[in-house]
């Protein structure tokens, strides 16, 4: 397997799309990035490896039911520091993650969370499309805080400022 810069650029795009769908896509969209016999290993969860697209679909469905939009929101996995190298007929990509979001605790208190971690993926081009053969997700630690909103800038009305129609 030879990797040129065009392939690496497009593969990085596929990785970003997979994490974006992991965060906000439907279970179908999140699962579509995996090969039919793909493996998802959420090591942070201390649970079994999830094998096959049907089981991965069930995992995303379970995750979205467990953490509804009322309990956890603004969920973002930032993926960066890609280390991409050929691995037999596949591509091994090790990347760093920085996850953030907000959640409501049982007491009703809203907390922010920031979670560094990493992902170790094996990708393979199957029928012209890059798919995840295996993804392991590790978490380093979680830090919690209290949310606030930025102070308004008070940008004054002028010739080019238009109020949005409600």
């Amino acid at each position, binding site marked *: 397997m030879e990797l040129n*810069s*065009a*392939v690496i*650029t*497009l593969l990085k*795009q596929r990785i*970003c*799309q997979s*994490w*974006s769908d992991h965060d906000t896509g439907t279970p179908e969209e999140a699962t579509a990035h995996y090969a039919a016999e793909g493996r998802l290993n959420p090591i942070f969860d201390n649970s079994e490896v999830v094998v096959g697209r049907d089981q991965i679909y069930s995992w995303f469905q379970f995750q979205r039911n467990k953490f509804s939009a009322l309990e956890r929101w*603004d969920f*973002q*996995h*930032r*993926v*960066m520091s890609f280390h991409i190298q050929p691995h037999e007929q596949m591509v091994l990509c090790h990347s760093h993650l*920085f996850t*953030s*979001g*907000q959640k409501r605790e049982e007491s009703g208190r809203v907390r*922010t969370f*920031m979670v560094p971690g990493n992902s170790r993926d094996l990708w393979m081009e199957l029928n012209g499309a890059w798919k995840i053969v295996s993804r392991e997700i590790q978490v380093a630690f979680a830090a919690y*805080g*209290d*949310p*606030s*909103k*930025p102070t*308004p*800038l*008070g*940008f*004054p009305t*002028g*010739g*080019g*400022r*238009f*109020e*949005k129609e*409600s």
Partner: protein
Amino acid sequence: MENSIAQDVCDIENLITEYCHRLDRGSAGDVVDLFTDDATLVPEFDGEYEVHGRAEIKRFFQHYHDHFRANVRHLQHMTNTSKIQVSGDIASAHSYLLATFVSAETGSGVTVTGTYIDALKKERRQWKFFRRTIQVHFASTHSDTIEQLEPMGFEGESSS
């Protein structure tokens, strides 16, 4: 075909990154140069309004620099996980935002998360923002903040 799309994706990634550096350290004019003449800026984090045209967008960023950037230290906007779709000379991008700074008033470090949603146009072989929406999700303040780390104490050989 694959090479030209990859080049466009790289150029758009560079544009998105360039915006961060110019916003943090450049002038309002430097920032607005990254927008098309007919661009629209939608700073959703600041209210229900849109800013149309380069002159007004420049005025917005000047206001941002005077009223926000002037009151913070070490401002850094960071983007990643950019999902980019190119179709000829137009494109869309969706990027995660992480910004950090120290409040000059309180000395506390602040982390802000959000999203940039962009429509882009290629004009004279250069990608520019045609419409940029800025969403902020939350800010989180860190009261235990230091701006100068303890020295490691490394003693190198003195050059004579």
